[in-house]
């Protein structure tokens, strides 16, 4: 169980994965993954490209079904069919490139697919005033202040766009927020904006799954860290159990690099002193929850 100062151990996790795996035909994309998401806690999923991060979030967000292990929501084993099923259970996903429709105004984007209406059919129409007011309120609650909700969302910065998508998911009843590399395409400053809103979402009691390959970003907001490598767990540790350096090493394929160190040491001109010894690294698998 992840230890966290703000959340007591009595709080029941919303999402629990134990020994989950996924095979596409003969290819075993993912196996033996354990993951827990509790309310008010940020779980970071790290890993290099091809480590299995996207397969993992596809399972949790309902795009794909797992083929082994158990996936529990609120303690109940589930098998999600579509993203709509996941949404109905309070799991919302904000994709890096799929968050918004750039040319549409902010408030239309905010309510897209769940518009507020008034009047009877055939005169049922959008309740624009109420939607704008609500959107403004919700964005302010997340600490996002926009002067003009009519501006196309594409004219906002990348960080702001992600933030609007996060606020939107929160408003529509998400209990668990999956953020797929929200900072990947952003500059330092914009990344900071997004991290701020991740913290804001956590403080509102949401469970957050933050997928990234930047350990610095992860360490700034994460309560628990899961590192994937080659389709399985490389590390699963609470914040108190792991330092940023260790996290960075695991991300960089630490154990492999250490093994490589010996070979590199024989080549002159390569400074191997900065690389860690295998014995310095924490054990590859975290203590079972």
């Amino acid at each position, binding site marked *: 169980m992840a230890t966290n100062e703000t959340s007591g151990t009595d709080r029941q996790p919303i999402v629990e994965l134990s020994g989950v795996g996924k095979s596409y035909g003969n290819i075993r994309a993912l196996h033996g993954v354990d993951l827990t998401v509790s309310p008010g806690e940020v779980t970071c999923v790290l890993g290099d490209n091809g480590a299995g991060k996207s397969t993992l979030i596809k399972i949790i967000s309902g795009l794909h079904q797992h083929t082994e292990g158990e996936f529990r929501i609120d303690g109940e084993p589930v098998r999600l069919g579509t993203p709509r099923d996941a949404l109905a259970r309070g799991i919302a*996903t904000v994709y890096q490139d799929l*968050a918004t429709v750039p040319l549409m105004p902010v408030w*239309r984007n905010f309510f*897209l697919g769940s518009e507020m*209406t008034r009047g009877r059919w055939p005169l*049922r129409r959008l309740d624009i005033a109420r939607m704008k007011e609500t959107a403004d309120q919700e964005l302010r609650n997340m*600490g996002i202040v926009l002067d*003009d909700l009519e501006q196309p969302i594409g*004219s*906002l910065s990348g960080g702001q766009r992600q933030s609007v998508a996060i606020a939107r998911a929160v408003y529509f009843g998400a209990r668990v927020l999956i953020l797929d590399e929200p900072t990947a395409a952003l500059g330092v400053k914009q990344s900071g904006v997004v991290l701020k809103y991740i913290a804001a979402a956590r403080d509102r009691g949401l469970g957050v799954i933050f997928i990234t390959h930047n350990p610095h970003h992860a360490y700034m907001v994460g309560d628990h860290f899961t590192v994937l490598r080659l389709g399985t767990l490389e590390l699963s540790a609470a914040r108190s159990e792991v330092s940023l350096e260790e996290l960075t090493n695991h991300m960089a394929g630490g154990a492999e690099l250490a093994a490589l160190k010996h070979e590199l040491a024989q080549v002159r001109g390569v400074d191997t002193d900065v690389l860690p010894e295998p014995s310095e690294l924490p054990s590859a698998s975290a203590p079972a929850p």
Partner: protein
Amino acid sequence: MTMTQQDAPAASPPAPSPAQTDGRTAQRSAARRLLARPEVGVAVGAIAVFVFFFAVAPTFRQADSLATVLYQSSTIGIMALPVALLMIGGEFDLSAGVGVVTSALTASMVSYQLTMNVWVGVAVALVVSLAIGALNGYLLVKTGLPSFLVTLGTFLMLQGLNLAVTKLITGNVATDSISDMDGFNQAKAVFSSDITIAGVSVKITVLWWLAFAAIASWVLLRTKYGNWVFAVGGNKESARAVGVPVAFTKITLFMAVGFGAWFVGMHQLFAFNTVQSGEGVGNELLYIAAAVIGGCLLTGGYGSAIGTVIGAFMFGMVTQGIVYANWNPDWFKLFLGVMLLGATLINLWIRRQATRK
């Protein structure tokens, strides 16, 4: 072209962008916000064209002439509206031009061959037109092919069907006149009558056009469905991810084009009594042109119904204005092309000014 250059500098230069503050966006100036509306560019272009012909062609100034221009604009404009909606939804319909003729042929042949009241033919034609739209949409959604290809296929098929079925059924390539049949006068009153407004005889299609434009604009800006149209055209995957019924939206948009084709087809039938089966080819591009001049983006996700109305009106002004100005007809098409291109450039320039950060 000369007039477009004269008028271009009339638009105000963009205000310098205020510095952005962290977490907040700068307030956009009122002028900038006005310029960002899709119909502003075309409105400026249309005013320029209007002033130009008003100056050079005395006949253009008469109220009667305006009625003629409006009539020409309305027959393009009624179709351009659903075509614009479809374009905002991210798709094209190349079968729209021949679809009009298909609808007219259907109504004419059903009424004549079965000796039915013409309203029966009108109803059957509506069903056929909607079905063609639904088929276009269904094929698009199911196959995932670009709409350009799917509707190019239906365009060719309809062209062949129009000819072959007409020839098969009537033995001729044009339908028989239905002007002496029951219900013809009623239908003519609905689809093709003249109404006198302030002493000027105006074709009823002009009123229908404006009514349809109001409905289209309302649907687009004030309803859930309109929101979905912008979303499926702007970013289909995002729309799907947030629960917008993408397939439903696209199919119904194609059906709206079918409805437009039906209406214009009925107008042609009741205005001219017979239908030539080979007509309509090439008009689909005029509809698309009107929508694009009216500020719709070819790539989807942006545009307006009002802009499309002005786009069709501008097209009508240019086609008729050249006649009123009594220019050498050998150059007709060239003038037309240059003026349309000029208007589109003004439109583009203004939009660029508006969206520049």
